[in-house]
């Protein structure tokens, strides 16, 4: 009996260990130490007016995307991973309900590609650490810029570019203020940003 019990216990332990071995990565994927830490305590941050939340049943418009995108930008400039993740979630909802019906078929095709790509980035942003959020934000910004080229926007926006990000390849973003608030570096390099248009 003792031998059987020993074998059984061994089997159980092996099984559980194997299970945990493959389970470990599931949780640890995003726990990479963010290199650009440093809570930017930017006094009196220009809070973007509360973004319009996407109506999950209705059709969302470019304006909703822009608003939530700007929330994301502010959150990243403040190095706030949680707020950024939340903005990411809103953006996912925006993109999923995006209404393309008022555009030409060529534009719709382009918008479909943009939205498909942007949705994935927003999804990653909603569940990654700060460093990864910024990586996805880079490409997401390009998507949003391209989207606005088709849809237009009621807001007055400024496009910035900071060449120091991503090994000198640089990153772009849109902002609604003339004050440069770098979302890629936060307080570490808040003012890196060249106004483009």
């Amino acid at each position, binding site marked *: 009996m003792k031998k059987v019990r020993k074998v059984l216990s061994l089997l*159980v332990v092996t099984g559980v260990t194997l299970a945990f*071995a*493959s*389970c*470990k*990565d*599931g949780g640890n994927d995003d726990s*990479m130490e963010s290199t650009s830490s440093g809570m930017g305590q930017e006094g009196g941050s220009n809070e973007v007016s509360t973004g319009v939340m996407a109506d999950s049943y209705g059709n969302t418009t470019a304006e909703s995307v822009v608003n939530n995108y700007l929330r994301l930008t502010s959150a990243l400039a403040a190095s706030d991973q949680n707020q950024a993740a939340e903005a990411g979630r809103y953006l996912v909802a925006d993109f999923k309900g995006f209404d393309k019906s008022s555009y030409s078929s060529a534009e719709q095709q382009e918008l479909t590609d943009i939205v498909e790509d942007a949705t*994935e980035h927003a999804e990653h942003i909603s569940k990654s650490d700060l460093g990864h959020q910024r990586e996805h934000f880079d490409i997401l910004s390009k998507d949003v810029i391209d989207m606005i080229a088709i849809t237009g926007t009621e807001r007055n926006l400024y496009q910035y570019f900071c060449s120091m990000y991503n090994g000198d390849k640089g990153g772009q973003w849109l902002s609604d203020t003339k004050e440069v608030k770098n979302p890629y570096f936060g307080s570490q390099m808040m003012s890196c940003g060249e106004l483009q248009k």
Partner: protein
Amino acid sequence: MRVLRIVVLVCLIVIVGIQFVPTEHNLSESVPETDFMLVNEVPDAIQAKLKVSCYDCHSNNTSYPWYSRVQPVSWFLEGHIEEGKSDLNFNEWEDYSTRKRYSKLRSIISQIEDDEMPLESYSLIHSDAKLSGKEKAEIISYMNQLKERL
């Protein structure tokens, strides 16, 4: 001592019981024309490396080892595979828009550079999946080339 016997018995029952839970396996007979390797005419050395280190989770065809048939291992594997495929599926490369390809290439490069891929738990068991410094550099350089060409 009685308690231990009961615990072991219960564990045994659970372990045997869960073996009967069916899991879908990620298997496909042929490589589709939309596959990354075909679309890009990937050089042999890179092809081989990608297949060994990436394709199990990032394609429609996984090579399952014997222990993968045992629960709960099977569940965890399927979870990884599902997530891997939804993030990137090399078999569907041609169906990706140019924009999406660009995003994926950037992610591939970044994940390999940061040593986040291949997953540590995967390369622990599949030591041939580990990427040496040289292999990483080769793959990254190739992916960069593809990115430039887009």
